[in-house]
């Protein structure tokens, strides 16, 4: 499927699975997670260095070839997201950014208006902006106008592993938007990632479901396969579903037909 090109911000990607780097019991599994899942894009967050303890550096575990997608987690306003994005770019790891503006700590739902404002500012500064938002068509259109490189709607609240609760709205985004739709947050099972891809999602971003699995490497491999299977099914064109049964075997030539 070499003709099935997936390009974000001018970068052609082979894999349609993005992976997170949070919540691992041991960051040392991250290289293997990347390898077996095929993921080429990983998210990271920006935080203060703990001056009183020498914690490990997650960057020591992220393979060199991975495309880094820093998020703006912790931002509660558009201005804070812009500030974090600029700091992340100053780390010298490229100009991609996942905009996350959240002021609701209970469900961690993204602020669409603030996300649009931040997207407009950062896209004008040359960032490749991937905004994390609710699955809302008007927000998505505003983000497209603001210069976003993709739309990243949530399937369910962050870290819940509850699956594609916003299924119908994501379906509408995929249908209506020219930008890639990357399902981010809530995907708990490979089957859910597969379903999103069957629907025509451009990619999925998975963190909690892999990082908190009994065997993160095994789960990463399963997600890689599920995303590929779902993409292949989408490209192949799903057969129509219907209410009544339709026999798959011929309805003529039965044994004993015409006997009295």
């Amino acid at each position: 499927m070499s003709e099935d090109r997936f390009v974000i911000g001018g970068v052609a990607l082979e894999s349609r699975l993005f992976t997170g780097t949070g919540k691992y019991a041991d960051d040392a599994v991250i290289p293997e997670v990347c390898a077996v899942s095929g993921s080429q894009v990983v998210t990271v967050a920006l935080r203060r260095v703990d001056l009183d303890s020498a914690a490990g550096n997650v960057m020591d575990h992220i393979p060199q070839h991975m495309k880094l997608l820093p998020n703006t987690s912790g931002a509660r306003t558009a201005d804070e997201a812009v500030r974090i994005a600029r700091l992340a770019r100053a780390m010298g790891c490229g100009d991609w950014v996942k905009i996350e503006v959240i002021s609701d700590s209970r469900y961690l739902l993204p602020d669409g208006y603030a996300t649009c404002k931040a997207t407009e500012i950062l896209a004008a500064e040359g960032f490749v902006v991937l905004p994390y938002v609710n699955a809302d068509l008007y927000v998505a259109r505003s983000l497209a106008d603001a210069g976003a490189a993709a739309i990243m709607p949530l399937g369910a609240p962050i870290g819940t592993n509850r699956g594609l609760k916003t299924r119908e709205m994501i379906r509408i985004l995929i249908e209506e938007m020219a930008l890639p739709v990357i399902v981010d947050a809530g995907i708990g099972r490979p089957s859910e990632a597969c379903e999103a891809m069957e629907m025509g999602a451009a990619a999925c971003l998975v963190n909690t479901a892999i990082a908190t699995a009994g065997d993160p490497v095994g789960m990463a491999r399963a997600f890689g396969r599920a995303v590929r299977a779902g993409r292949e099914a989408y490209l192949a064109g799903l057969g129509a579903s219907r209410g009544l049964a339709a026999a798959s075997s011929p309805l003529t030539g039965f044994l004993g037909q015409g006997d009295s």
Partner: protein
Amino acid sequence: MIVVVNGTQREIDPGTTVLGLLEGLGIAPDTVVVERNREIVPSATFAGAVLNEGDHLEVLRFVGGG
């Protein structure tokens, strides 16, 4: 003199640079980004950026995230 680093006051010698501060804290300069009084300090200028009394510094690095 006193500067504020990641929200905590620190006593440093006058003339200390950003690079000197990081080294004093045991932080590898190529693993962090530094903001001084809300302005990013480009890493190429760490060695020449002399701190002033009351500077507010943020020293940040990438951590695991989703």
